């Protein structure tokens, strides 16, 4: 039986909804959020999500550090962020309420599991009195539901143990949400059956509870109104839900398959990059060899060694790991072999806040190597873009025989959105352009006059044995300490990287037109929030434009001119001004930075306020 979608006459149409689900890390918050997301996406909405994990270690149940959250925005129009304030907050326990209440909008729906607000729960969350009763929640629409008890009751007689039964309660809440927004339960039922295929009693129980929640919403008419969010006007095509890290893995498989390149991923687990390794280790049939090495140095080493043998070497990490890979990256710039390095940035410095997002590795990516060792740096804008930028990075790495750093972010890594699934033939074929004919050999560092790239000769190629290494060498690849040669080689390597700009799309505005009163420049994950903020301000008639940089090195052509076309420039970043620094140095632009380092992305509202302020509005 599928819930009768659209059969409720009274559903109010809404353009977009932000739902936040919060509870203990043991409460299945991420699963619940994930299901709500897929179901919304399947219903044709545009979606954007923001999981918010607690610190890595499981904190004691019920405490503030143990709270896990998940935010989802679904919409009938295009959206670019998971939203600022929540329209609905589901709080499974007092701690979750305490942490997340401030993000619920005035008048928003607050759904709490009343059963968890006992003395013990309140104490653990540090509440002296129950917030449910002390009038402190007057500004929101509070709904107290005995979710635990109702779940237990729904399962009475199934023979399920109390602990297992309690674990199903997230599906009760999910059922209520599905009722609230008129969502079908079918996709989740299918997912449950699949997931618990080996434990049918759990499958049955979860399904039962999901339906019970849905029906409870329906029967009790818990909410004053129920809503519907019609499908969004996405570009036609086949869509799936995808997060940024899985997107990287998929792209690597696509490269391997389409270009016939062996991909060797050397990696070492680190939050929030580990899931790329996980996803890649399921791609063995696709020509992707995932190898968990003993550390970050060995993992990039394996990738570089693989490149010497003609494979596309890849390594994935986060900030601390990138810091360790600097020496090998320097070697890679010297031996000029293709190599992809993904840094899924997290809040630093040092161990910092490993589960939180940040954009603070840009200058390290650009400069974190000794000597003159320039290399291309790219950054994806969205989870889907993690797919396409991986292919772009591989294109550059292969064409220019160079390591490339891709700076993704924790926020993109686990945030998901609808991804238009490309047909395999939409994926470009990258020609490795191996040199295999000894007749074409003019030295290991004889350069292509156009790209300045050296030949890529996979070890094993007959008749082309050669030696590479980290010492300075001449065009033939012979070690050289000659003064003039070094100066020339430094210039050639730099020129090669700078020259990539000619091969990139020139800088262009996302929104607005040259000559507007303000230009907002961003990079990485802030693209969505900036675009949305700028659109919303423009809708009010403000003359504000935006520009997004996917390529941080080299910067796209025409950027300087564009920047100069605006009287004021704002550079919002999740760091203390690293792109700002780059633009200052390169273009002497008198830009203003907007720096958030709070382990969280920008809110559209924050950006709008800043834009308005700068426009004197």
């Amino acid at each position, binding site marked *: 039986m599928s819930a009768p979608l659209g059969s409720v006459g009274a559903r109010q149409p809404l353009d977009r909804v932000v739902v936040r689900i919060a509870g203990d890390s043991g409460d299945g918050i991420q699963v619940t959020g994930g299901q709500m997301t897929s179901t919304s996406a399947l*219903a044709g909405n545009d979606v954007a999500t923001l999981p918010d994990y607690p610190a890595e270690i499981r904190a004691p149940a019920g405490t503030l550090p143990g709270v896990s959250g998940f935010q989802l925005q679904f919409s009938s129009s295009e959206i670019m962020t998971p939203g600022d304030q929540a329209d609905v907050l589901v709080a499974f326990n007092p701690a979750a309420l305490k942490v997340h209440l401030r993000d619920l909008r005035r008048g928003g729906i607050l759904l709490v599991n009343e059963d968890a607000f006992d003395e013990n729960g309140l104490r653990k969350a540090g509440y002296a009195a129950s917030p449910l009763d002390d009038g402190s929640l007057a500004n929101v629409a509070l709904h107290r539901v005995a979710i635990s008890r109702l779940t237990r009751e729904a399962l009475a007689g199934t023979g399920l143990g109390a602990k297992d039964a309690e674990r199903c309660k997230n599906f009760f809440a999910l059922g209520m949400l599905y009722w609230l927004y008129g969502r079908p339960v079918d996709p989740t039922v299918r997912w449950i059956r699949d997931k618990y295929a080996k434990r049918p009693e759990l499958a049955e129980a979860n399904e039962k509870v999901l339906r019970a929640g849905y029906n409870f919403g329906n029967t009790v008419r818990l909410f004053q109104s129920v809503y519907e969010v019609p499908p969004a006007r996405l570009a036609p095509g086949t869509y799936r839900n995808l997060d940024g890290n899985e997107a990287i893995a998929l792209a690597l498989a696509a490269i391997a398959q389409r270009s016939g390149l062996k991909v060797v991923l050397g990696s070492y687990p680190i939050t929030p990059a580990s899931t790329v390794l996980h996803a890649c280790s399921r791609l063995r*049939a696709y020509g992707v060899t995932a190898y968990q090495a003993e550390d970050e140095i060995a993992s990039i*080493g*394996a990738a570089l*060694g*693989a490149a010497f043998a003609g494979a596309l070497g890849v390594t994935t990490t986060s900030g601390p790991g990138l810091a360790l890979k600097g020496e090998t990256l320097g070697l890679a710039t010297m031996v000029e072999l293709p190599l992809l390095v993904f840094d899924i940035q997290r809040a630093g410095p040092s161990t910092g806040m490993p589960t939180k997002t940040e954009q603070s590795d840009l200058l390290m990516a650009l400069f974190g190597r000794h000597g003159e060792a320039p290399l291309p740096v790219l950054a994806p804008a969205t989870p889907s873009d993690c797919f396409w930028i991986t292919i772009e990075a591989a294109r550059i790495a292969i064409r220019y025989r160079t390591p490339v750093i891709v700076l993704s972010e924790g926020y993109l890594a686990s945030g998901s959105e609808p991804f238009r699934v*490309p047909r395999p033939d939409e994926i470009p074929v990258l020609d490795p352009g191996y040199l295999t004919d000894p007749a074409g050999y003019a030295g290991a560092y004889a350069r292509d006059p156009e790209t300045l790239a050296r030949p890529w000769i996979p070890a*094993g190629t007959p*008749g082309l044995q050669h030696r590479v290494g*980290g010492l300075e060498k001449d065009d033939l690849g012979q070690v050289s300490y000659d003064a003039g040669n070094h100066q020339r080689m430094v210039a050639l390597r730099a020129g090669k990287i700078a020259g990539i700009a000619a091969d990139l799309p020139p800088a262009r505005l996302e929104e607005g037109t040259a000559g507007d009163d303000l230009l907002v420049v961003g990079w990485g994950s802030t693209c969505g929030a900036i675009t949305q903020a700028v659109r919303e301000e423009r809708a009010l008639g403000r003359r504000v434009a935006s520009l997004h940089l996917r390529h941080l090195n080299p910067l796209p052509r025409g950027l300087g001119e564009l920047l100069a076309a605006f009287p004021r420039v704002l550079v919002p970043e999740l760091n203390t001004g690293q792109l700002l620094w780059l633009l200052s140095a390169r273009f002497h632009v008198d830009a203003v930075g907007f720096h958030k380092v709070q382990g969280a992305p920008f809110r559209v509202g924050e950006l709008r306020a800043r834009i308005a302020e700068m426009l004197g509005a």
Partner: protein
Amino acid sequence: MSAAGPPPTRKDFASDQEVRWCPGCGDYAILSTVQAVFAKLGLARERTVIVSGIGCSSRFPYYMNTYGFHTLHGRAPGIATGVKLAAPELSVWVVTGDGDALAIGANHFVHAMRRNVGLKILLFNNRIYGLTKGQFSPTSARGQRTPSTPLGSLDPPFNPLALALGAGATFVARSVDRFGVHLAETLEAAAAHRGTAFVEIYQNCNIFNDGAFGYLTDKDGRVDHALYLRPGEPLRWGRDGEHGLGLGLAGELVRVPAAAAPGAVLRHDPGADSPARAFALAQLDHPEFPVPLGVLRAVVRPTLEGEHERQAAAAREGGGPDLARLLAGPETWEVGAGEAGDPAGTALSG
């Protein structure tokens, strides 16, 4: 030059580079033995890769007409592992020094031992940092005076063979720069081994640590102070094989007069499943004991690259690569060209 020509000779393995070690350096002898062995084994130059770290020893690849990668200090095993994973069909050799492999590089070293990846690791042990002009290394004797230990070094040295065995090595051997025939045999055994083969080569650095192995390479040393290990043969040494190794009361290895009690002399079994005996042998050292030379351990275990290939083959069998399906993932939906809100524009698919 083509792969189909006559098999390369020893000279064919020499690159066109002038060899630049100090005159008298033990590295020369090793280089020429390696070239001879490669030729004898009929290795194809283009299917051979030599990966090195940084150090005098690590200049080795420049002098070989094979593929070569002179990498970073200590990092050769990790990089070589990548070569092997990408191209399991190549013969991959690592050349390293005692500092390179055992100081900065010990992490990658022990992991290469444990993983049994098809690398032949040749450690030129001169018990000193040659390239950086003579500081003590992790194999330098305690008390050694060097520029960084003018009062004598304080660190007890590693026993490289014991370290390798402790890390789970499947092939462990030792030879000496100047013992050309023995070294050649040992390298051939290493080449024949599937998985990680570790060969420690005593190498004289005549500039910074001259004579470190003089007791062995001096006139009578190779007879009086070496214990040549040969599979199945008794553990005997001396001019007339007059000394033997037997079992002590506490299970340790002890000297026994080989002539008087031939039955008490143990026999060498490098293929023993347990590494315990090899470890006991590795403990023997000059001057109390002779130095064991040859293959201490050689056991057959699955190789990393072989297992990777096996898993890949199995994965392909269980449903070959289907990129379209992979990209689509578990669940997709269609958005048509219709208007927003047009239910026809959206269709679920499982």
